[in-house]
């Protein structure tokens, strides 16, 4: 069988309410869509086994205000646009980090990968201590 990578998501609710957390096999990933300048939803094959309506995990992050002028929060040089338009640089960044984590297939590990966990976590416990992608500030899980 193919080695699987299991992707873990959790909001900040302490895993006390329905869909506070979820784990999906990476092979069930269907794709990600930018929903706004501050959100992207990651879709997976549904856990109900029907294969129809995908389950989604909506990740929220900050957008980047690009002030007019010579420098801005979006950087300098080629990274700087300077037109004053707010952009969503974190959309690509979060998707890129997700791709790196989801495609990890590492020998001699548990293949348990934390994409994002917003709960207070203990220190020095490997993946248990991992909060995942640092740019993500909120997680909303949809599983029908």
């Amino acid at each position, binding site marked *: *069988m193919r080695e699987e990578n299991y992707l873990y998501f959790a909001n900040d609710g302490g*895993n006390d309410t*329905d869909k506070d957390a979820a*784990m999906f096999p990476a092979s069930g990933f269907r794709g990600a869509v930018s929903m706004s300048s501050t959100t992207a939803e990651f879709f997976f094959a549904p*856990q109900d086994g*029907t294969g129809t309506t995908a389950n989604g995990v909506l990740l929220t992050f900050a957008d980047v205000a690009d002030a007019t002028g010579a420098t801005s929060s979006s950087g300098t040089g080629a990274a700087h646009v300077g037109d004053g338009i707010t952009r969503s640089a974190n959309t690509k960044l979060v998707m890129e980090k997700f791709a790196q984590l989801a495609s990890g297939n590492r020998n001699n590990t548990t293949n*348990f990968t934390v994409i994002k966990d917003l709960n207070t976590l*203990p220190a020095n416990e490997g993946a*248990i201590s991992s909060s995942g992608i640092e740019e993500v500030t909120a997680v909303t899980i949809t599983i029908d």
Partner: protein
Amino acid sequence: MAIQKAVPSQGGETFVTLIKDADEKFCGPASNFLGLKCDGAGSMKLRFEDIDGTAAATVIDVTVTDTAGTGVEMKRVCQAIAGAMTAHGVQGKFVKIADDLTDEFIHPDLLSVDAVA
């Protein structure tokens, strides 16, 4: 139509089993795992492709420890389950995730199997 995630065998498959009692048991290939979710405080639902081939899922309810208030126990159980389902090292292995009959569990924060349906 059910999503078929099983892939051609390379010489072995990891099989996992969860047992509630003499009448409610599950054993299936790890590659049929659809995912799991938190179902409330101290409660998780694991889902596998239905073993009868229909477009549905076999749903297994389990209880986990919930005392820290941060959900870390559930996370630890998720990590243990992920580790159990990986196929590294031993081809064709058979892993018991939870067995209420013999009181054997893959992690001490996994407390019971409540339903297999």
